[in-house]
C-alpha cells in the first residue's frame, strides 16, 4: 500500500448513532460520527478484550463496548469509564487506537501512515458521491481499468489483499448517478470474471 489517504466510506454511511464497519489494508475499522458531527476512524477492537467496536453503541459523545460497557471518548479514543469500577479514573493511554480522519467531497478519508501524500485536489466544483462498488480483486488488478472521464473522479480503497472498493465522485450533473453506477458495475463484472 502506498503512503496515501484513502476513502473508507461515504459521509452518509456515518448515520446518527451508528457504527460503520469497513477495513483498509486488512485493518478492520469502526467509523462513527459523534452528535457534534465529528467523524471518528478507529481500530475495530476494544483494547480490553478485543471485541469489535462495531457491535458496540454510539452514545453520541462516546462509543460503548458491548462486552463490559467500557466507554471511549470521541476524538481521542481515551477510555472515559469502566462500569465495573465506578469510582476509578482510567489511566491516560488506555485508549482505542485512532486514525486521522478528513471529510472531503462527501467521502470520509483516512490513512494508516504517519506522513501521507495530500488528498487529491479536485478544485471547487460540486461533487456528489456515487454508490460504493465492492470488487473481489486486489487494487492492482483494478487500477489499470479505471475509465478516465471528465467530471468523474474514482478512488480505490484496498480493503484487503483480495478486495477493493471503488469510490466514485460525479462532478457532471448532466450524467445521472445511475449511468455511472451501470458503468462501474460492468467494470466490476469484467474485472471479477478475469480474476482467478
Amino acid at each position, binding site marked *: 500500500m502506498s503512503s496515501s489517504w484513502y476513502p473508507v466510506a461515504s459521509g452518509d454511511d456515518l448515520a446518527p448513532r451508528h457504527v460503520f464497519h469497513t477495513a483498509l489494508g486488512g485493518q*478492520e475499522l469502526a467509523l462513527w460520527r459523534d452528535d457534534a458531527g465529528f467523524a471518528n476512524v478507529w481500530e475495530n477492537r476494544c483494547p480490553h478484550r478485543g*471485541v469489535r467496536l462495531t457491535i458496540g453503541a454510539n452514545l453520541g459523545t462516546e462509543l460503548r463496548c458491548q462486552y463490559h460497557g467500557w466507554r471511549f471518548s470521541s476524538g481521542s479514543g481515551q477510555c472515559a469509564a469502566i462500569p465495573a469500577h465506578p469510582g476509578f479514573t482510567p489511566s491516560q493511554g488506555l485508549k482505542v487506537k485512532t486514525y486521522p480522519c478528513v471529510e472531503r467531497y462527501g467521502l470520509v478519508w483516512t490513512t494508516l501512515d504517519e506522513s501521507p501524500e495530500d488528498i487529491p485536489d479536485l478544485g471547487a466544483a460540486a461533487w456528489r458521491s456515487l454508490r460504493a462498488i465492492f470488487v473481489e480483486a486486489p487494487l492492482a488488478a483494478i487500477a489499470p481499468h479505471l475509465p478516465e472521464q471528465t467530471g468523474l473522479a474514482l478512488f480505490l480503497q484496498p480493503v484487503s489483499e483480495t478486495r477493493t472498493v471503488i469510490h466514485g465522485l460525479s462532478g457532471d450533473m448532466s450524467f445521472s448517478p445511475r449511468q455511472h453506477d451501470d458503468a462501474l458495475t460492468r467494470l466490476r463484472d469484467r474485472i471479477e470474471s478475469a480474476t482467478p
Partner: protein
Amino acid sequence: MDQVALDEWHVVAALPSLPFGQEVATRLLGTDLALMRSPGDVVAAWPAASGKALPVCIRYGHVWTSLGTPARPLFDLPEFAEPDRRNVMAGSVPVHVSAPRAVENFLDLGHFAYVHDGYLGVEPHTEIKPYKVTSDENGVLATECRAYQPQASLIAEGGFEVEYVYRVPHPYCAILYKSSVLDEKRRDVIAIFVQPVEEERIVAHMLASVLDDVSSDDAIKNFQQLIFAQDKPILENQIPKRLPLHPRAEAWAPADAGSAAYRRWLSSRGVRYGTIPA
C-alpha cells in the same frame, strides 16, 4: 502439535446426544474422530484415519477422550453424584472462537450487566467488588465473587446479590458455584466443558447440576441456552480469536483478576493450543 493439550482428557460429546449403535463423527484438536455408543453405556472412540482405539471415560454426563497419554485423571466434580441434584446436559453449542476465550468469558463477572442485561446483571449495578483468587498446579479458584442479579436462575424471584465461586480445574473447563435459591447452605453448579475442535473452533458443552424441584429439564436447558446465546456473538467478535497470554497484550481492570490468574496458569502449565503464547 501441543503435547500438553494432546495429553489432556477432552470432552467430545454429551452422552445423551449419542444414539446407540450408530457411528457419530466429531473432531478434536484438528483430528477427525468417530464415536460409537453401545448398550450399557460403553462408548468407543477412534481417529477416523487410523481406527486405533482411544482411551474413553464417561463422567459428568459427557464422553471424554485423549489423543495422547493422559498425565492425570479427569478433575473431580463431587456434586454430580449428590442424589437430590438435577443433572441436566444443557446443550452443546459450536462457537467460532478458541477454547481459552470461551473459558475466560465464563469466568468473567464484568459483562453481566451488558451481555446478560436483565438476567445476570443490570445497570446501575455494574460495580465488581474485590474477590479472592488463588491458583496452584491443579487450577485456579476465585472466591467471594458477588454480583447483583435480577434473574439469577430459572426459579429466582426478583433480584438479589449472588455469591459465586469459580473453579478452573482443566485448561478448557470451568465450573461455577452460585448461591442456591432453595438452600442457602448449598450451591448450584454450572459447568462449561469446552471441546477444542480446532484452535479457533469449539463446541461448548454445558452441564447444570442444580437444586430445583420445580423446573422441567427442558426449562433448565432453555435458560442455560438463552444465557449462552447472549455470550456467543461476543465470543465470535473477539480479535484475535486465540487468547493472548502476554500480560500486556490486552488492557486490565481489577475485576479481571480471575482471567489474569487463568492466563498465568495456562502459561505455567505450558498450554499453547488456542493461545498466543507470551
